[in-house]
């Protein structure tokens, strides 16, 4: 485990908040630092600790345009954007993917077992990539919104997220059961 103390500072200017900067494998290295926190070392600039990753286009370009953000004691700043994660060394890319997996806690629905309705709630019984789950969601438009062209994201009463990546991949029975209530 790499241990660093105060972020190493150089005389290089801070990243401009109004200018877009793309991070390339040649100019930076992504690694673990203090207490296994994600760090990014930008050549001739500084080491950024406590970094997290966020998709700019999670639906349209899931492996591209990934923003790396640094949250220091004062404020959050964007270190830069990775144009294509596949261009980075495998280890670096794996760390970014892990950071993304941590940030986006979403259940991917594999099978819809049953859908019911009562008093304004929809009761979904589904199998997800994280196991079988029954959840209640308010029957409202803002609780089931579009994900790309044919996907849907559902938000339950606790604001947990469930993703159906493509409605067309559901069986006719599942689709009918789903669209009987979530028709928008």
């Amino acid at each position, binding site marked *: 485990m790499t241990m660093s103390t105060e972020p190493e500072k150089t005389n290089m200017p801070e990243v401009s908040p109004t200018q877009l900067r793309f991070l390339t494998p040649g100019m930076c290295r992504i690694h673990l630092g203090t207490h296994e926190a994600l760090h990014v070392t930008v050549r001739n600039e500084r080491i950024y600790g406590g970094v997290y990753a966020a998709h700019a286009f999670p639906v349209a370009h899931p492996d591209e345009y990934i923003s790396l953000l640094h949250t220091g*004691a004062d404020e959050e700043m964007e270190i830069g954007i990775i144009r294509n994660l596949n261009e980075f060394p495998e280890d670096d890319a794996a760390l970014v993917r892990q950071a993304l997996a941590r940030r986006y806690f979403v259940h991917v629905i594999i099978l819809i077992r049953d859908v019911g309705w009562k008093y304004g709630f929809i009761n979904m019984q589904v199998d997800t990539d994280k196991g079988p789950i029954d959840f209640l969601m308010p029957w409202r438009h803002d609780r089931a919104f579009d994900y790309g062209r044919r996907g849907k994201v559902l938000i339950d009463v606790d604001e947990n997220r469930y993703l159906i990546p493509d409605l067309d991949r559901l069986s006719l029975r599942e689709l009918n059961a789903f669209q009987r209530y979530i028709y928008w």
Partner: protein
Amino acid sequence: MADSRSELLNRPVPDDLAVLARGEGVDPRQAWLSAETDLNLAGGYEQVFLLVEDDRLLTLARPGGRWARPVRVQLARSAVKEVRTRQGVGGGFLEVLVDGVYVEVLAFSNARADLFHKVCSKLKLWIGDRKPSVSREDDYNPRKCPKCGMTLEFKGDLCRRCINRGAVLSRIIRLMGPYAGWGILMLAILLASIGLLMIPPQLTKHLIDDVIEPAVKGTLTTDRAARDLMVLVVALIGILILRAICDSVNGRLSSYVGTQITTDMREAVLARLMRLSIDYYDRHSVGQLTSRAVNDTGAFNDLIRNVTGGYLAQILVVVITGVMLFSISWKLALWTLLPAPLVILASTFYWRRVYPRYFRVWDAWSRLWSSLSAILSGVRVVKAFGQEQREEDRFGRSNRYVRDSARRVEYATSLFNPAMGLIFSLGGPIVWYVGGLEVINNALLGNQEGLKLGGLMAFMAYLGMFYGPLAHMTTLTDWLTRLLTAAQRTFEVLDTSPQIVQADSAKTLTSPQGAIRFENVTFGYSRHEPVIKGVSFEVKPGEHIGVVGKSGSGKTTLINLLARFYDVDEGRVLIDGIDVRDLEMDDLRKTVGVVLQEPFLFRGTIYANVTYGRRDATPEEVLGASKASHAHKFIMRHSLGYDTYIGEQGAGLSGGEKQRISIARALLYNPKILILDEATSNIDTESEQLIQEALARVTAGRTTIAIAHRLSTLKNSDRVLVVDKGLIVEQGSHEELMALGGLYHRLVKIQTELSREPSVDALTILKK
């Protein structure tokens, strides 16, 4: 004695894990805080515990995956400089600042977000060398139903799973309570009308069996037959006239009661909407609410009309004709019931498969309204950007959605209803066959007591009355569905609790002074993202305060909390030493006046708009306020002066003119505390100068809080609060803040470079 330990913050560690922990030198019993999360730091479900002892914190879980040991994170208190929660997507993280880097201690799903916000606040005290208390009181979560534990939409909301909801239909009937007298009268007339309807077949039976047939057979004289025939015909005509009178009276009564109930419901819905908090409007579009207030309430009128002239009448006709059918021939009557099982099956199918499609239709209409409303409201933007075709396409999509969803329902019902009608009609031919045979047999056998031709004719007449309404009754489910859907949507509005309610023993503020105090105020619009974080400040009566900060820093939120458009999550907002939550709502509104960035004017005269907050203002006061706000001059340019009628949202007036009317309105309202929310940010420099002069008059002698992007508008301020990321980072006079060289200094520099002013020092700092 009841256990005072918190169930959530003194969570017991399972025995097997405790054994593993002890092997690592950790005794879970030593922890003053023990909380359980549901995620690990790889983003997967796992039972992980956070244990906090006096001098260290650690996370504990069963070994597995990339973690070979039960203790996953361990940090000494002395190493932790700060604690925070960071929101992810669908969950969040508890993080601590160690060696200048924020380190993730644990992850949690949104189901546990409230718990770890609480843990975070405890840890903040812990790192500050203050031992926080943990007790059962910490388990209280106003966003959870105390009965079933389900997360509520907002604090204090009713749990829809637990409320005693009753059936929608019974509630509708209860709503009819005030009209019970009218209802009984309508029911009596309806019964009389149905009674009259039952008489003609009996007369027919009598006519055939006792008059025509004996006359044909020669057992009755022609004179007697003609006389009886005349009596029966006159009786028939009399009955028809009486029925017509009954139906006419009932039609009028139903119209009277139905329209009255609908009017009452619309007013009740609007009254509820007016009482609901601003956050309700954050969640619902104007189009959807309009549809509920206008369309859905119309269902109650429909109900009354159908009770008197429609379905209730038909149900009664079915029941009474059923009795008549059985009284004529129970064997024949049984044949008519053959289709009953098929009806039950078809109805079940309808409720399960067709019913939910109605929601889509209602939703489609709602969207169409919203879409059209947005296009028409924003028509200037549409034209300015040349997006007419795009909006036409957008509207086209909504319109086709209405078409398609309506077709889906109507295609289904157009198949269902005739199929049901066919099922019911099958009884007719059966009766002709079975009844015809019985009449022939009785005639051949000379059975005088059995069914005769007149009886069969009467039976067929009743059967027509029975099947007619029954065939129509197949649409009962259709109608009832629409009624229940509309009623339920209306009740949803009526059942929504206002988030902002007046305290039971609210205090009055008879002579407000205008002192304001924020005490450790924390607030967020969404559950897990505080916009204001532990803010404290004080404003003396009559003080002029400027509030500056970047967009999204929390300036307007401070004002929203002061005006109590929202309630704080933590801390207190006080006016003259009284928590705003304990104040009479009317007193609060009278004390705090707001001039918004986008002045909203209502359709009506200029006079009505100026006097919006004070309907009792005299013409002299209106003139004075308008003069002071520099509005009088342009108002008088209109040929109808103050009686000039202005359109929706002040159409026909410039931005500056609208703003000056809104300032006149505020001046007339005469609040002790005046809030100016970027009141001059959307207007030209000349108008701004006029408005600034007007504001100088308006604010004299009142506590004033002015939010401003243009720092020139703060030249009259005694003090400036600088807000950044939900905190007040600087405060002081302009000179003090400039000397400080902080965020305010930077903002002034930026603005000076952008403006024509040679320097911000050119701004005259006028003390009142």
